[in-house]
């Protein structure tokens, strides 16, 4: 293990202007069809049909560029973006696995891209078959009776499940009494935010200092006649599996509540644990985590929800169904919560996930999961050798599932260098920065690397070596970290506009207004 890993990487540095600065009057990047002369003659001056006050006086001030200029600009921006395909990118909780390119080719086929959601089912039997089969596979993977593919992201799925919990109690006439949802602080924040959005009071449980999860007694104390349900993540983002889960579910059920388990990241328990078998009533999977659809610069994702038999009547409509001869969209669900989003879900990701599950097969999924967990525990071993790094709850849980949440508290106390600094420095070595933690940071100075099954041993060794090198710098030459990044596309960012309404500018027009006038010439070529 070397402590002098080279930071001789350098990011692409284009100093690319904002696209509005590249605009030149009269240029245009594409030609589009126009109406035939006969049409123009038949309809006359079309704008005169719009009442005066609804007629736009001058066209929107979009930038004016030629096609090659647009392409160059966005290719450069893509080059200044670090994806899974670029290098070591093991952002935790997100399962940044490599997405096979064949799935891209399939999902982008015109047979997927150019069909309309309201076409007669007869003309879309292919996509309906894929949706139907994926629903079945997800049911098999979760032990749930039925799946809806409609939610477009993890938080959307959790909101759907919170709505189903409300609807269930509404139907039983108990909604007024049951106005509390229990969650745990190490669950994804949407498990608190979504029920709160629907008016539930949210009770957040904290972990025992020894075990890393709440005691049974803590849960018992929280469960009352007001409990509508428990909404939590398991395994946690600490990579710890909450082995009280069965008991929690029993207790909440006994009290008349429902249980929704956030299975967004199911990578470590795939084929090994089915949350429906453990007694959960509802769950969701993130296809963009465990099922290999690319993260797409933060979306589109896709997060199907699964329900136990008794709750399938509440699922959003429609669900793809099969009558023995033909596939169709099934709207016949009298107690449905209706629509949680427009149409049927993120279709290209549904196709990608179908292709991935099919190619992996049951054996491949189990193996992928196992390899990911081996990768993680290997990385934990290596990172615990780094000075200043610790893994809370290590004594109780030396082995973790999908990831570990480490702390740089010791390093910060001894050198003044914390995770914010390290995250700016790690970039200089050509790695993607580290996932810290959702808030609150109950683990101080946290970072959460999650190596999926597609990380190689060499990647993990390199990752550990870079952390060794940065630790060495922290203890010997901390200034190089404080002033980082040195090899990124830009230097240290001024974050004051973040909280200053006079300075923040979410659009170029706002920027020009707030800084006084036209393009001030800075940063332009």
């Amino acid at each position, binding site marked *: 293990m070397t402590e002098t890993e080279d930071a001789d990487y350098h990011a692409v540095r284009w100093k690319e*202007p*904002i696209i*509005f600065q590249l605009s030149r009057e009269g240029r245009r*990047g594409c030609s*589009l069809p126009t109406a*035939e002369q006969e*049409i123009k003659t038949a309809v006359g001056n*079309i704008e005169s049909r719009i*009442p005066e006050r*609804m007629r736009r*006086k001058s*066209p*929107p001030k979009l930038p004016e*560029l030629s*096609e090659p200029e*647009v392409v160059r600009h966005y290719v450069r921006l*893509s080059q200044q973006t*670090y994806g*899974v*395909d670029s290098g070591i*990118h093991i952002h935790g909780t*997100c399962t940044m696995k490599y997405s096979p390119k064949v799935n891209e*080719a399939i999902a982008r086929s015109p*047979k*997927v891209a*150019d069909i309309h*959601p309201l076409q007669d089912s007869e003309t879309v039997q292919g996509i309906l078959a894929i949706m139907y089969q994926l629903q079945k596979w997800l049911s098999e993977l979760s032990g749930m009776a039925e799946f809806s593919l409609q939610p*477009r*992201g993890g*938080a*959307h799925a959790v909101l759907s499940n919170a709505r189903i919990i409300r609807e269930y109690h509404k139907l039983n006439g108990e909604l007024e009494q049951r106005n509390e949802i229990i969650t745990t602080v190490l669950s994804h924040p949407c498990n608190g*935010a*979504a029920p709160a959005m629907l008016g539930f009071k949210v009770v*957040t449980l904290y972990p025992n200092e020894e075990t890393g999860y709440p005691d049974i007694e803590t849960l018992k104390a929280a469960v009352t006649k007001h409990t509508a349900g428990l909404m939590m993540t398991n*395994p946690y983002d600490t990579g710890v599996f909450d*082995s009280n889960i*069965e008991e929690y579910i029993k207790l909440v059920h006994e009290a008349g509540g429902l249980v929704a388990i956030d299975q967004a990241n199911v990578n470590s328990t795939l084929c*090994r*644990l089915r949350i429906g*078998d*453990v007694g959960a009533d509802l769950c969701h999977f993130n296809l963009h985590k465990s099922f290999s659809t690319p993260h797409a610069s933060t979306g*589109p994702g896709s997060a199907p929800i699964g329900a136990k038999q008794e709750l399938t009547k509440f699922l959003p409509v429609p669900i793809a169904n099969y009558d023995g001869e033909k596939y169709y969209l099934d709207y016949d669900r009298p107690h449905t*919560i209706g629509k949680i989003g427009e149409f049927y879900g993120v*279709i*290209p990701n549904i196709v990608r996930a179908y292709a991935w599950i*099919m*190619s992996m097969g049951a054996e491949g999924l189990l193996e992928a999961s*196992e390899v990911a967990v081996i990768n993680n*525990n*290997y990385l934990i071993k290596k990172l615990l050798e780094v000075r200043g790094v610790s893994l809370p709850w290590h004594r109780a849980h030396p*082995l973790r*599932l999908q990831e570990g949440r480490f702390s740089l508290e010791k390093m910060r106390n001894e050198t003044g260098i914390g995770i914010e600094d390290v995250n700016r420095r790690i970039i200089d070595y050509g790695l993607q920065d580290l996932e810290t933690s959702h808030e609150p940071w109950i683990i101080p100075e946290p970072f959460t690397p999650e190596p999926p099954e597609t990380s190689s*041993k060499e990647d993990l060794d390199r990752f550990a070596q870079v952390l060794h090198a940065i630790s060495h710098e922290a203890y010997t030459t901390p200034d190089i970290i404080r002033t980082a990044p040195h090899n*990124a596309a*830009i230097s240290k960012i001024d974050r004051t*506009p973040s909280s200053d309404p006079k300075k*923040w500018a*979410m*659009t170029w027009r*706002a920027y020009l207004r707030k800084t006084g006038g036209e393009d001030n010439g800075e940063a332009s070529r």
Partner: protein
Amino acid sequence: MLKEIGVTSAEQLFVDIPQTIRHTKRLNLPHPTSEYETRRHIEKLLSRNATSTELISFLGAGCWPHYVPAVCDEINSRSEFLTAYAGDPYTDLGRYQALFEFQSMIGELVALDAVSYPWYDWGTVASDALRMASTVTGRHEILVPRIISPDTLSVMRNYCDGQIEITLIKENRETGQLDLEDLKDKVSSKTAAVYAENPSYLGFIETGCEEISRIAHDCGALFIAGVEPLSLGILTPPGEYGADIVCGEGQPLGMHTYYGGALLGFLACRDEERLVSAVPHRLITITKTEKEGEWGFCYVLPHRTMFAARDKARSITGTATALWAITAAVYMSLLGPSGIQELAKTIMEKSNYAMKRLSEIEEIKVPLFNAAHFEEFTVNLDSTHKPIREINRSLLNSGIIGGKDISKEFPELGNTSLFCVTEIHTKSDIDMLATALEEAIR
């Protein structure tokens, strides 16, 4: 690696999962297949889909067929954008800049200064807008037009469940325009916002926006406008008729129809702290760095979102639709001001030609409402005494996908279908529709 970890088998790594709850049987899933087999199997399934290039489709209703320039697909496929996630601006500078540019161009379309990170779809951003209005005003009633997509309304009801009451405003039966008298009757000091759409779900242009805005503001309520973005090439931007919050569907900005799977909600508001603070999603601001001449980016008020505030945020955000938004930025920069203006005009010319052409058929009424229409219009088939399903089936036999049957959504409008015509339809496509429809109703 197992040796380094200090175990002898991978099985030992799962020690935390109680044996009693483990699944030990092989799941009923396929056996692994090669890349070739997988592709062949799926492509065979997909061959049972008929695309809008194989048939002539006149469907819209929330997902509209437009030409997608090749550059959009090219940038959308860029491996870096495709496989990136949530890195800092230091590693993901390009992603931040492209999304800032998306926000900026939406700002130009709607004429508002504050634009949010992209979100799921029109229904969910409209719902966010309703909730924002409730937060900002401390009021819990929203007025929404009766003529609205029932799916969008259903999403709104789910988002507002138990929190906000949604009341429907009638339309003028002749023109489809929001009935201002009914609006005045229902608006009160309890109203958080009035929501209106332009063009409406049934395709006509709502011309009373300034009055609607004034009526809402007079009661201390906000005015929220839902818009289709391409129409803003020729329609007055909502920022100019008093909208406080604007939302809409960005799918027309360079996304294929994808069976409704490539939607992109956009959300904008006045650049006022109280409104910006109520936006549930990430907001990128442009900033500077320590070096002269460099642009940097960061998030506005990050502690306001669910990520930090958890249940106190009382809203959700997260992974949404960034890659579509980057694609939309590409599309808008390809079009430029003259392109979007010309495109909007073309769409309107073609759809108005289609209305004119179809209205030559005696038994049908096109459109139902006496108003200007943008790209969609109603076709009433009452006099044909044939169910729309049957008519659409005949059209399909001629290689045409007819409009959306809205007779169940709005029974009082009778046997009515919603047609969509855009720049992709040629005169001969439209003429063919007219001929086929004439045959279908006989």
